[in-house]
């Protein structure tokens, strides 16, 4: 009880800022307005939503577009007539608002994933909004995003895309009572790091023991050399109300756009990174330059899930970044190296934030298509999609030669 009180007290400390008070009030008003418009149907729609496949997820922004355009489409002069019903709707909506989770918006995001100029699609993207409501996040929802870039076949990246988030969920729902030393924030951070590390370890163990044909290694008759060179990078991000947790293995990348600056939340695992080279050589491996630095002259990333043949030089262990969210956070970009090989983090950040801005400059005719289709230029859900689309198109224009997968998450309009 004392601890709970202390938590509340700390929370109140954060509320002192008048700016944050205003923001919180604005969000509450927005939530009430939305609840007033949608009421129960919105709630049931959320409940009915099933897990989304990569491509079917394109329906999400469109659905949200429809929802918001209904709000936007309400003529102002009719407002007077709706005054009495609106009042009663507000009263009704008190209950849904109190539930909190039921009406909380999922983060707005856009995904584009294309084969590009390669003749094989080995990338995979997974997005799981409202993955679970773990104790470590005080029973509030967490949202999971990931990009996997496979090599030597798509088996491992496909396996990651179907399984990694279930490991994260399982690890979060276990109530391991670790030592509670340090400040509350330190405890939370340590728990998150443990969750991500254990999830990646389990994922790597599964990948190295599963053959391309789907059976366990001891039971199958496939050529063991073929299975042994299949692997995948994995950059994952978990989004909570207060934090962004990024766990990365390999050379895909996560970048936070904060007040216009690109802040790396991951550091590419390349064989010629000094500490990676040292680790590889200490493990008995070599870094050879064959069309770029490669582990044993084979692999261009120094860490990966799978790749049994190159273990232990090619490690599974992720680097984890635990980042506190701030009001200046604009968006988060996760992408495979098909994007980062031809676009700098800062340029990607600039383009994404321009797409996400509320007051879109009229000269940005790059958004014309979406506006023509929707007859409303203020579609927030479409902005993340536009950002991801624009980044992908630009990478194609700069002659990216690999698969390109991009996820853009709008942090300004993601209260959870």
């Amino acid at each position, binding site marked *: 009880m004392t601890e709970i009180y202390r938590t509340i007290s700390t929370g109140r400390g954060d509320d002192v800022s008048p700016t944050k008070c205003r923001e919180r009030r604005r969000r509450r008003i927005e939530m009430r307005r939305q609840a007033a418009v949608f009421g129960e149907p919105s709630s049931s729609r959320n409940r009915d939503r099933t897990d989304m496949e990569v*491509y079917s997820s*394109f329906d999400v*922004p*469109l659905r949200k577009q429809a929802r918001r355009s209904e709000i936007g489409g309400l003529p102002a002069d009719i407002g007077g007539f709706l005054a009495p019903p609106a009042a009663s709707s507000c009263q009704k909506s008190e209950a849904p608002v109190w539930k909190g989770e039921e009406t909380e918006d999922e983060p707005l995001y*856009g*995904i*584009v*994933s*294309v*084969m*590009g*100029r390669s*003749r094989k*699609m080995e990338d995979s993207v997974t997005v799981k909004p409202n993955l679970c409501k773990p104790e470590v996040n005080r029973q509030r929802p967490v949202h999971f995003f990931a990009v996997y870039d496979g090599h030597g076949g798509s088996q491992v990246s496909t396996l990651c895309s179907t399984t990694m988030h279930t490991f994260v969920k399982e690890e979060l729902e276990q109530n391991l009572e670790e030592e509670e030393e340090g400040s509350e924030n330190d405890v939370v951070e340590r728990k998150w790091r443990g969750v991500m590390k254990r999830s990646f370890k389990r994922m790597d163990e599964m990948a190295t023991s599963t053959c391309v044909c789907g059976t366990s290694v001891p039971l199958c008759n496939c050529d063991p050399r073929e299975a042994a060179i299949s692997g995948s990078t994995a950059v994952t991000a978990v989004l909570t109300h207060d934090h962004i947790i990024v766990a990365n293995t390999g050379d895909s990348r996560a970048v936070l756009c904060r007040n216009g600056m690109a802040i790396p939340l991951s550091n590419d695992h390349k064989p010629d990174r000094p500490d990676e080279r040292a680790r590889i050589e200490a493990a008995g491996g070599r870094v050879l330059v064959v069309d770029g630095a490669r582990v044993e002259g084979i692999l261009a990333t120094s860490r990966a899930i799978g790749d049994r043949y190159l273990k232990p030089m090619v490690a599974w262990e992720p680097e984890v970044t635990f980042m506190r969210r701030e009001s200046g956070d604009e968006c988060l970009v996760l992408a495979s190296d098909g994007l980062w090989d031809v676009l700098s983090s800062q340029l990607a950040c*600039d*383009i994404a934030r*321009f797409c996400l801005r509320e007051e879109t*400059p009229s*000269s*940005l*005719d*790059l958004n*014309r*298509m*979406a506006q023509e*289709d929707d007859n409303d230029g203020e579609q927030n859900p479409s902005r993340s*999609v*536009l950002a*991801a*689309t*624009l980044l*992908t*198109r*630009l*990478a*194609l*224009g*700069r*002659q990216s030669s690999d698969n390109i997968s991009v996820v853009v998450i709008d942090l300004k309009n993601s209260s959870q």
Partner: protein
Amino acid sequence: MGSSSKNIEQAQDSYLEWMSLQSQRIPELKQLLAQRRSHGDEDNDNKLRKLTGKIIGDFKNYAAKRADLAHRCSSNYYAPTWNSPLENALIWMGGCRPSSFFRLVYALCGSQTEIRVTQFLRNIDGYESSGGGGGASLSDLSAEQLAKINVLHVKIIDEEEKMTKKVSSLQEDAADIPIATVAYEMENVGEPNVVVDQALDKQEEAMARLLVEADNLRVDTLAKILGILSPVQGADFLLAGKKLHLSMHEWGTMRDRRRRDCMVDTEVIFDACTTVNSGPRPTETTNNERN
């Protein structure tokens, strides 16, 4: 022999007719696209749809003619004498690779986006951008369109690979029983042989069937891409494709001619040297064979 000759002439005539039709379509596409840019409206979109539909029809008609003729002279379609060597080096199963269509979409979409992003970023810095704005419809590809194109791309490459395996197998048959063994057993190289003729007839017939399949894949891929693109994007794409096809023919022809002219020049120089050296020491003149 006469009949065979007529078939080949028909094939070439059919090709020339097809190329001529493609040339005609270019100004038609340009005109409608220009109209769309000046005053975009629903009626113009309908006209564009109609024209792109006609162009798909052109392709289908040409494919149907090829299907008919291929059964009589299929190998002439695999290495057409009416193409330049460069074109023949780049074709797949007697025509363009269906997967090339996606590269064209990506190239147009990407390069046009690069131009517009560059212009936009300059505007941010206060530069005035007076130019541009014309013919950039493919830089408006939406996420949904990119996703649909990607799904189709994966599928078409898979189909393409399957077909490539079939033709690989056919090509290997030429080094197998009975063709290779008959060649080996022959006293005089290249003598006519009934068994070989039958085997080769069978092989060419199989190649003809594959050509038809490949043409179907090309038409199908094109139609599906146009189904994903908007009318104006589709027209831009077709315009780019036709310009590329006709340009490659001209470029290839020009490059080949230039290469042959170079050989002629070499001979002239050699003759001059020979003339200078004539007299006290007799020299043998070597005749350079062309090709």
